[in-house]
């Protein structure tokens, strides 16, 4: 196999890529799916409440707000600036804490407090910020609330649906790039008989197939990273993430090459994808429905690549936790590589005899 010839074919595929609807599909679909699912189930377009504080005396309230997840804090030095930014809807609300405010509160002096609320801010954000401010002042005062609040959690404890969807969306991004792109590209060349023209040059069919695989892999891994980033699921363990995505990319690209070499045309690839797509996506459904028997997910080959992705991104685990699954995934990948090579050899004969 010649790396130079593989690169030549790859360059051609990259050159033709932007002219192909499938290529654009690969780039856009994960983004669109993320947007649709996160809008429907997640909090992608729910803005965090934005609170501005002018703190003239190092109040513990400012420090407490900074610790709260879900409130965007902006510290300012000037009350007039704060007021104009709230008016301009740059902030939902603003709080001016005068010097000695905490001491006055503790001493029962009832100091004045200016709390600005933007006229265009969301009502929900105003309520959150007002209640939070009152609660924090009560803490400074050291007084107990007038009632005992009993918090009752309803629904099952677990990850929010927006997080449980991440494996599904990530797998979709991987599938579109690693499976659809190489398989459609190969089938398209076979259907238009351009493969026949390639195999009578010094290029070998195995080199053409390899170039298609590299194309799919080269797009699958970055698109998976982009998808995870869009879903706020990028991990603090980048090396582990790259390793699990590389293994996932390799396995799925091999499935794509099997589809491409086994199909005589694009319709054939569509038929294969329609028939087997569920099997490839099935493991991700078990994350969405955690009360289903989870052992069933392990029966599907793609479980062994998507679970490491889930563990590394959502549970922030390292390679030490997922190495067994990665080893199984690599075993499956070797088996798939053997099948892809056999189908490539068969394709060469089929090209000449049809």
């Amino acid at each position: 196999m010649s790396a130079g010839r593989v690169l030549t074919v790859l360059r051609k595929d990259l050159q033709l890529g932007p002219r192909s609807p499938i290529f654009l599909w690969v780039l856009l679909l994960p983004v669109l799916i993320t947007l649709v699912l996160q809008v429907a189930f997640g909090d992608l377009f729910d803005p965090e409440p934005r609170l501005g504080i002018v703190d003239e005396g190092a109040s513990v309230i400012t420090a407490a707000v900074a610790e709260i997840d879900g409130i965007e804090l902006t510290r300012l030095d000037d009350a007039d600036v704060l007021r104009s930014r709230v008016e301009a809807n740059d902030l939902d609300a603003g709080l001016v804490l005068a010097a000695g405010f905490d001491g006055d509160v503790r001493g029962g002096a009832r100091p004045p407090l200016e709390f600005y609320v933007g006229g265009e801010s969301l009502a929900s954000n105003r309520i959150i910020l007002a209640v939070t401010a009152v609660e924090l002042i009560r803490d400074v005062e050291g007084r107990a609330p007038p009632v005992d609040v009993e918090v009752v959690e309803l629904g099952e404890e677990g990850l929010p649906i927006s997080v449980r969807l991440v494996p599904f969306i990530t797998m979709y991004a991987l599938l579109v790039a690693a499976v659809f792109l190489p398989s459609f590209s190969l089938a398209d060349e076979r259907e238009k008989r351009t493969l026949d023209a390639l195999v009578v040059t010094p290029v070998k069919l195995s080199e053409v197939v390899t170039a298609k695989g590299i194309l799919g892999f080269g797009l699958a891994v970055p698109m998976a990273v982009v998808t995870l980033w869009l879903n706020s699921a990028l991990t603090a363990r980048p090396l582990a993430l790259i390793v699990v995505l590389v293994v996932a990319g390799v396995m799925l690209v091999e499935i794509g090459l099997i589809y491409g070499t086994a199909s005589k045309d694009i319709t054939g690839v569509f038929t294969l994808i329609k028939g087997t797509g569920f099997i490839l996506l099935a493991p991700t459904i078990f994350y969405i429905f955690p009360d289903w028997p989870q052992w069933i997910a392990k029966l599907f080959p793609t479980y062994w690549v998507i679970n490491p992705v889930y563990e590394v991104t959502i549970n922030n685990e390292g390679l030490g936790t997922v190495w067994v699954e990665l080893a199984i995934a690599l075993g499956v990948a070797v088996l798939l590589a053997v099948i892809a090579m056999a189908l490539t050899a068969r394709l060469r004969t089929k090209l000449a005899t049809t």
Partner: protein
Amino acid sequence: MTAAAIEVEDVSFSYGEVEAVKGISFDVAPGEILGFLGPNGAGKSTTIKILTGQLPPKSGRARVLGTDVTTDDPVMQAQIGVCFEEKNLYESMSGRENLRFFASLFGIRDVDTEVLLRRVGLADRAGDRVAKYSKGMRQRLMMARTLVNTPKVLFLDEPTDGLDPVSSQAIRALINQEAERGAAVLLTTHDMHEADELSDRVAFINDGRLHAIDTPENLKLEHGKRSVKVRIRDGERVTEQTVSLEDAAAGEELKAAVSAAGLMTIHTEEATLESIFIEMTGRGLEG
């Protein structure tokens, strides 16, 4: 003596139970055009697929430029050019991009696409996508693609099939130029006039067997029936007389006919490759 560029010795091939090529042997010298004449399904394209390394022969040996075709040798592949009957170009690429890409597959980085495109009359459409080309333009681009590596051996599978006379003539001129350059050309066709006009030798193939291989002139001399058709006016009537030049008394018959008072026209009637093919194989070339 110049070594043959293509050597085929007793080659056979079967598609399952169907024998497509049955023990054929021939060779093609550098600079020679061998016309491979036969109807559809005769075994022409299968022979090309064997010689270009796409199909392994079931038996026999075939060599191109001294290399066994079963070795899948990139060095040999780099010296051949194949023009398919099917227009398998990249339609979303321009003509120029198609040529550049195929040149790069042969390791050629500095191909002068403009010269090639000018040779096939496509210089002014070089930047247009192939999807916008007519059938004739696509076929001419196919020929340009075949020549992109200046091949020593050309395999041309029905290169003028279904083309208008102007495009056909342009492609025939190219084939002659390539042969003059020294390329060995194996040209499959079922167009007897094309084969007659272009080929140094023609081979008749039918049902996988090679029935004859020789120059068109020798085939006509050996297998054709030569005759002269004489038309004579006799009062209001016009009579037509055919004098066979194969007969011993042909000279006397012809002299009598020419001396006739009402002689109108004399036509020599030469055998055609098609008539010889039909005589030898029992079927026509279009079937």
